[in-house]
């Protein structure tokens, strides 16, 4: 445990003094503050058109005519933050010839990967929670409405989901840093996977769904089948799971309706009211568990590969 803490402290201090941390923090703050500006401009209209009383959450979900909401920015930046903190975790130690020296110290090998992993999670948590708290603080000052207890809980869970999602990307990047010797290759591979999940899975899902259940002159059953195929494929993407979970959590009125195929007659029979926190959590629980499981799987693979790797100094 002592060695994990030593490595954790060193990594944490490295992250906080590194240029990549400052650049990421700057980027996240610029986009975060831009999105809060947009949200404040449009929050009155958004609040009036909404049926629920959770106005404070609209700071994070309201978009403008041109700029998207903070949620969208965050879904874009969290994978980048995760990848940046993981892509060179192990292979940079190898290429700088530090790993052999580290391994010859009286520490268990897993202390190295565990220490780095924990430091990465801590740094991500600080970045994500600080920007969310800054936005909340500015919002509180500008709109003058304090958050309710439920809103605070939703924000805390939102931060936790963001950290889990970032941890998945960090674990994936860390896996590549263990398997691939060159840092450039590991970052490129991680970014390629992120681009695939973020941009292409939806296109592929739609193409496959349309091929399997064409919508042209389709019956209601075919339309539902098309929706379900598309949804099933989309849910293979961690980015989609993340967006689903945080949207339902932060937009409790109606967003959950997109989780399954619903006909207009279904809607006409519904009494639309915002979901309580418990109900929202029940809706997104599978998505959250899937994200956590993916993060654990990636970390477990990198852990096992690293433990079994033979490290030579040459």
């Amino acid at each position: 445990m002592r060695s994990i803490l030593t490595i954790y402290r060193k990594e944490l201090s490295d992250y906080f003094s590194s240029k990549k941390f400052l650049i990421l923090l700057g980027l996240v703050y610029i986009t975060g503050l831009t999105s809060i500006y947009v949200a404040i401009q449009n929050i009155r209209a958004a609040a009036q058109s909404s049926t629920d009383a959770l106005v404070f959450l609209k700071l994070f979900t309201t978009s403008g005519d041109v700029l998207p909401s903070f949620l969208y920015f965050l879904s874009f930046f969290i994978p980048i933050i995760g990848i940046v903190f993981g892509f060179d975790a192990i292979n940079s130690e190898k290429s700088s010839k530090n790993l052999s020296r580290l391994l010859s110290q009286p520490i268990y090998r897993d202390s190295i990967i565990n220490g780095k992993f924990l430091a990465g999670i801590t740094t991500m948590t600080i970045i994500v929670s600080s920007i969310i708290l800054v936005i909340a603080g500015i919002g509180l000052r500008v709109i003058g409405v304090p958050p309710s207890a439920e809103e605070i809980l939703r924000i805390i869970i939102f931060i936790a989901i963001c950290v889990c999602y970032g941890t998945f990307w960090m674990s994936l990047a860390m896996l590549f840093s263990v398997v691939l010797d060159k840092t450039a290759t590991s970052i490129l591979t991680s970014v390629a996977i992120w681009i695939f999940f973020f941009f292409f899975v939806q296109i592929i899902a739609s193409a496959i769904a349309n091929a399997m259940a064409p919508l042209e002159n389709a019956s209601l059953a075919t339309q539902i089948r098309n929706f379900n195929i598309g949804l099933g494929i989309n849910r293979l993407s961690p980015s989609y799971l993340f967006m689903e979970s945080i949207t339902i959590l932060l937009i409790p009125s109606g967003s959950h309706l997109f989780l399954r195929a619903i006909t207009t007659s279904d809607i006409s029979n519904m009494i639309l009211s915002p979901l309580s926190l418990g109900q929202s959590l029940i809706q997104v629980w599978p998505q959250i568990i899937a994200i956590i499981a993916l993060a654990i799987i990636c970390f477990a693979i990198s852990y096992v590969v690293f433990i079994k790797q033979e490290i030579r100094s040459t």
Partner: protein
Amino acid sequence: MENYIITTKNLIKKYGSKTAVDNLNLNIDKGSIYGLLGPNGAGKSTIILMILGLTEPTEGFISVADFNPIKEPLKIKRITGYLPEKVGFYEDMNAFQNLEYTGQLNGIPAKELALKIEESLKIVGLENDRKKIVKYFSKGMKQRLGIADVLIKDPQLVIFDEPTEGLDVEVANQILETIRELNKTKQITFLISSHQLNLVQRICDKVGIMSNGKLIGEGNVKELSDNTFGGNKYQIEVEIIGDIRKVSEKIKSLKDIKSVSVIENSLLIGTDEDIRQEISKAITSLDNVILTKMNMKDFSLEDIYLNYFKEV
């Protein structure tokens, strides 16, 4: 086993079908400087990894200071310093911070650690560079910092992989001097893996020669020389112009000659007496033969090494 810091018995390490270390029986005395020689792929680095518990033997027994590297790797690493061939440091940290990190990983209390760092830096002559960022260090300075790094934990055993590779003569000499000094004053055992035979010859008490995972020769330079070149007291090297076979026959007829080997236009004569005068007379008595050179030969480790690999 008490006098040995490292003992291996029938040690085997295989990577798939390839045998990296083959039935190795090695005993390294406490307080000695042991040189491990051999070409690339001979199995030297694999032995070092097994000693440190960083890879498991396929078969056989290994003990380091009476600890088992597989079951007790941390106990071994606590008393063993390892300086790899290409030593790396955190380049954006200064020398003191790098050593401080090593000390923290070794669980040395902060107060004691500061003193140890100062002492280690002084031993390697870097006491005035403690606050210098490591990226501005020369290769020699980094190597010296590497020695300071292994000294932090007060090791009983230090393993150096090519400690003077790529260093200029002056720096290499300083490092050798430091090793000798540490061996003498602190009774630290050194295991040095190197290609640089003159270095090994200069400082090692005992040498092991490895080839294809096997220990093909072991002993001090004199023992190795005797085993390799017949154990004669004197080896006289003679160069001539003329019929070398005729000269060889003439010398063989002399008294006290143990062996005569012909190597191109020179002869290597093994004898227990210094009979250079008799040899000279015998050669000059022959027609059409000119003696161009004659000297008493001390076998260097390089001669022994080359002879081993000529045979292998």
